[in-house]
């Protein structure tokens, strides 16, 4: 069995899982909207500061598919731009936390001894504090902005990646191929990054996909609490939060933005499930 056929089998497994395919489609749509937001959105200018009281508080209609908000901006357009924001937030947070988490988990597991003890206790401390509380505490030190929100969330998130990598490397560090590299005289850095890291990658990808949804959700929670991106940036969490004041009369504000979050989170979670199967078979 050749390598390409193994990969092909993986894809077929992925494809057989109907839900993961659905997830992939959802994500593809979201990405498409986010990238081409100015062209996809019916009223791209509504992403910014636009006041159009004539059309304020319109329920979903043929003109405004998902209705308008209290200043007359198209909700659909704002959700589409909101995707952009959410995806960027998720990607940045996960990139930072994977980098930090992998470095710490890998060093702790592979080097062992005191390094392991210190690094893993620090990780445990971070894990012991509820993530929303920790993120809020960090944000409490600065005035709300997208950048600070991302830093706060990465601080909350890396310990999970550290734990994951730590577990994998612990189980692999006595494998034959690691010993073989050490005997040849490979440096610890080479063993960690060239031999061990590729074996962590599938799990990291799967977890990243799963986390994408949760990070976006956490981001939305922070925005909801007024700690995310300040107005007028279209942010799904902020939209839910603002709309909540007008429930239940102007219901579409919160509900539609909430649906937007739901679609992104669901999509990433479903794909993560399929990725697990995919990497399971690709050796």
């Amino acid at each position, binding site marked *: 069995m050749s390598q390409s*056929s193994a990969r092909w089998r993986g894809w077929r*497994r992925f494809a*057989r899982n109907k839900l993961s395919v659905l997830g992939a489609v959802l994500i593809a749509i979201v990405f498409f909207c986010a990238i081409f937001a100015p062209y996809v959105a019916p009223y791209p200018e509504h992403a910014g500061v636009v006041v159009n009281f004539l059309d304020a508080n319109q329920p979903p209609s043929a003109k405004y598919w998902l209705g308008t908000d209290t200043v007359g901006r198209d909700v659909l357009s704002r959700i589409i731009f909101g995707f952009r924001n959410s995806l960027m937030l998720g990607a940045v947070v996960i990139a930072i936390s994977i980098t930090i988490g992998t470095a710490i988990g890998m060093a702790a597991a592979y080097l062992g001894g005191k390094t392991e003890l210190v690094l893993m206790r620090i990780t445990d401390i971070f894990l012991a504090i509820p993530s929303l509380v920790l993120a809020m505490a960090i944000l409490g030190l600065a005035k709300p902005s997208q950048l600070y929100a991302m830093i706060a969330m990465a601080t909350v998130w890396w310990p999970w990646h550290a734990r994951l990598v730590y577990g994998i490397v612990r189980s692999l560090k006595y494998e034959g191929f690691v010993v073989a590299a050490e005997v040849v005289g490979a440096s610890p850095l080479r063993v960690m990054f060239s031999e061990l890291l590729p074996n962590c990658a599938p799990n990291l990808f799967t977890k990243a996909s799963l986390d994408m949804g949760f990070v976006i959700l956490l981001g939305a929670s922070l925005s909801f609490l007024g700690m995310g991106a300040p107005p007028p940036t279209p942010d799904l969490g902020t939209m839910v939060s603002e709309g909540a004041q007008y429930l239940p009369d102007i219901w579409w504000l919160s509900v539609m933005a909430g649906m937007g979050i739901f679609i992104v989170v669901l999509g990433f979670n479903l794909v993560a499930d399929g990725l697990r199967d995919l990497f399971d078979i690709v050796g």
Partner: protein
Amino acid sequence: MKEILTVKDLDLTFDTLDGPVNVLRGVSLSVREHERVALVGESGSGKSVTARAILGLLPERNRRLNGSVVFEGSDLVTERPSRLRERRGRDMTMIFQDPMAALNPVYTIRNQFLAVLSRSHPELNAKQAEARMSDALRDVSIIDPTRVLDSYSFQLSGGLNQRVMIAMGLISRPRLLIADEPGTALDVTVQQQTLLIMKRLSESYGTSILFISHNLGVVRQFADRVCVMYSGRIVEEATTAELFANPRHPYTRALLASVPRLSSDELPEPIEGSVPDPREPIKGCPFKPRCALATDDCLQPIPLREFGTQRVACIHQEEFA
């Protein structure tokens, strides 16, 4: 003597994403009363799968199983699962390769042994059960049964655990014991001892044994009759004495030639080529691509032919006569 297990034309295919994988291609074998039969072959020959098929332990999904497995008059392939479970563990028991993995480390040996014992002898009271277990352990040459019963599997050596497994496997005085590579995970000296104990007990209890092994030498010491498997088929069957004195199938001969010998310091002969892919259909003899005697006639279906008590799936038998 009466046959207690008769496997006939067992054919097993798993449907995978890459298409069907033909694991067993018409396996027929029998075990008689008081007989030890060995199923010997290399990895991928289908010997362990055969054992699992007999025990009804194959996964249900994407499986096509044809043929019959008749154990004391009832066909296990069509038997109800509940009835099958009942017989398995009482009339037909099993021992696996790694005793450490088969025993649960969170329960004492006593707890696990009691669970096994109460299935076959629910009528025993605590005192009787204890006496029964101690006797069984003494039978497998364990001098201090009480200490062993009090222990957890991780506190005992591999050899002791294996002997405990044998005692458990035989406590119900089964008609048939299926042993899948017993002792392979153990040190050679311990393995030898274990086999001797198993052999002695099978004789004194009258238990038949179907013995799965990859090791020709072990088979030679243990079994009365040997079936050699290759690529999902039995290619040769004979009494142990006959098989080792006069191996007939080219594969059996090649396999024997690949064992290092004490009587010679020459390197053993490897078998060229590799085992056929079970995903590919095989025409005729599966050993043909690796066989020096092969001719075009080998592409025909090859039935097992009888030579005295020996059965061989090879058309080139006159050459050996």
